[in-house]
């Protein structure tokens, strides 16, 4: 039973990371109706930029390597890079494609994926890099002694960060002027335009916020598995999370992420050995597919009514 709980908790915690990536998708889909396939590439770009700045900044500024100052400066600069990326995306991709069918925009974001991956590796190189956030990746002793369950303190830290992020986003959406504008745009583009909400600014802001989420996800993920190209593949796991949770629901992304993370680990451990292992690669998709057959709009998605 302890083993079951360990697997379950490990799965839930990796689910938190899927949820973080899925969150970026949801934000952009809600505000601009764009299914942003490039979210995975943005995570990669953000993580690579952050690590890259960590490496070059001590040389540029003379700050102590690995110190607090370098860390925060790199964080701010990476955030700036994500904002720049958001502005460039709005200018180059979204603005010329206004009023195109959603499938065209989706394909454009696939093109953007390649562009972002190419630029990221062109600037920072394609080497696998380690990232040390200064958090121990060791089992928590308290849990070991009292419940005999292995939980890494790093995982707990990641989950806490995710929780804080979601709470902060919820507050931002609920109580700030920009947040209200974002929700208005998500509800109805035309109505939002007619009451004077500048759609383009909103798009930049929402892409920048998604970039911020990508940066956080990329840092946590990069610290766990190293900053490498494989980040973009792992980000694909966010897609079943999305269809499970619904494209337009922030809580859906979180709950979906937890379900996918837990179930894929449990399936790998308990079902995998019978069919030869490696089922993690497709299990989430099949699970989400089976789920869609029952609820086509996802767990928390808006019910869609077709009219001729």
């Amino acid at each position, binding site marked *: 039973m302890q083993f079951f709980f360990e697997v379950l908790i490990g799965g839930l915690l990796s689910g938190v990371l899927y949820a973080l990536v899925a969150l970026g998708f949801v934000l952009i889909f809600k505000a601009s109706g764009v299914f942003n396939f490039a979210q995975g590439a943005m995570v990669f770009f953000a993580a690579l930029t952050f690590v890259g700045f960590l490496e070059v900044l001590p040389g540029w500024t003379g700050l102590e390597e690995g110190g607090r100052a370098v860390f925060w400066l790199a964080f701010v600069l990476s955030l700036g890079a994500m904002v720049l990326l958001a502005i460039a995306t709005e200018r180059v991709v979204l603005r010329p494609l206004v009023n195109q069918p959603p499938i065209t925009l989706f394909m454009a974001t696939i093109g953007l994926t390649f562009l972002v991956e190419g630029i990221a590796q062109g600037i920072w190189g394609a080497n696998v890099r380690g990232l040390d956030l200064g958090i121990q990746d060791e089992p928590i002793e308290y849990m070991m002694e009292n419940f005999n369950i292995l939980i890494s303190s790093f995982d707990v830290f990641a989950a806490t960060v995710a929780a804080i992020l979601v709470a902060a986003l919820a507050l931002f959406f609920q109580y700030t002027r920009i947040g209200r504008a974002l929700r208005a745009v998500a509800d109805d583009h035309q109505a939002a335009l007619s009451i004077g909400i500048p759609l383009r600014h909103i798009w930049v802001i929402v892409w920048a916020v998604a970039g911020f989420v990508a940066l956080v996800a990329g840092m946590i993920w990069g610290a766990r598995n190293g900053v490498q190209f494989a980040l973009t593949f792992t980000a694909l796991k966010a897609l079943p999370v999305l*269809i499970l949770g619904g494209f337009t629901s922030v809580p859906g992304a979180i709950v979906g992420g937890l379900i996918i993370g837990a179930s894929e680990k449990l399936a790998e451990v308990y079902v995998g050995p019978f069919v030869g292992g490696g089922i993690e690669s497709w299990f989430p998709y099949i699970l989400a597919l089976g789920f869609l057959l029952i609820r086509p709009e996802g767990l928390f998605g808006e019910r869609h009514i077709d009219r001729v």
Partner: protein
Amino acid sequence: MLYREAGQFKASYEADQQIFPILQDRVGVLLLIGFFALAVPLFADQYWLKAILIPVLIFSLAAIGLNILTGYAGQLSLGSAAFMAVGAFGAYNFMLRIDGMPFLVAILLGGLCAAAVGVLFGLPSLRIKGFYLAVATLAAQFFIVWALVKIEWFSNYSSSGVITAQEIEILGFAFDGPVSKYLLTLFVVVVMALLAKNMVRSTTGRMWMAVRDMDVAAEVIGIRLMRTKLTAFAVSSFYCGVAGALYAYTYIGTVEPEGFNLDLSFKILFMIIIGGVGSIMGSFLGAAFIVLLPIALDVTVPVLLGDLVSASFVSNLQLIVFGGLIVFFLIVEPHGLARLWQIGKEKLRLWPFPH
């Protein structure tokens, strides 16, 4: 002046129902086929045949398959490479396990296997649509590749699922050189492309387009959604499957399931975006473009920039150019290269008297 319909009267039903109703189109297509079937084998060298012409033809077939599903029936799919894999492994097993299996029958049977799997993974399309469906087709992509690796029967118990295609022999003639393989590929692709061209203007094709444009409206005018969507999945997967079988037999020779990964699916998707969504000819143009672009970059970049850049930079540049071109095409010409040809034809109609 050179290209116009004026004066071409259709006096019989046959004339009215031809695949290419305009004389110039017919002549043009015949000339093209004649050029590629007769002139190219005479002059092209091994490299061109093996590394460029054969893959362009095979990917064109796969792109036609995806175009039928996405361009005509409006169901976005990200799993076309997996259906190619089913076709390749299907044809391999038919050749392996049945003595004296004719090659052409084997690749068609491989295509039918792919069609059956396609229908299975097309079933969710009855309940879900749009992006939800696109993500659902990823399930096919990952599951099929996994199954082909893990179930060793498919690859005749070879390690990690690698198969080596058998020799091709038709009626006692061995297709072992690049020229004969090229001609065989060309034959299959031309026949299937003409069939596709014919199919998309038939009742089936028009039902697909009605469903694409609005499925509820299509249902209201009496089109059976389930049948239409599933035939689209079946035909599309059949084309992809045959393309996959050709990929294994006339192009690569030795294939592994991992070769049919998500990247290949995306490549095929790009072919139809750049070539033209909903156009058979666009599939050919797109495939040629996507196959030729990396080769062109490999050749030109070192020449232009000399020793300034490293090989890894060139591969990153490829990614950037690739992504940039896709965005560029979507902005400038959302209907792809096929639309440019359309515009060219309109111009030709008036030329040389534009008023």
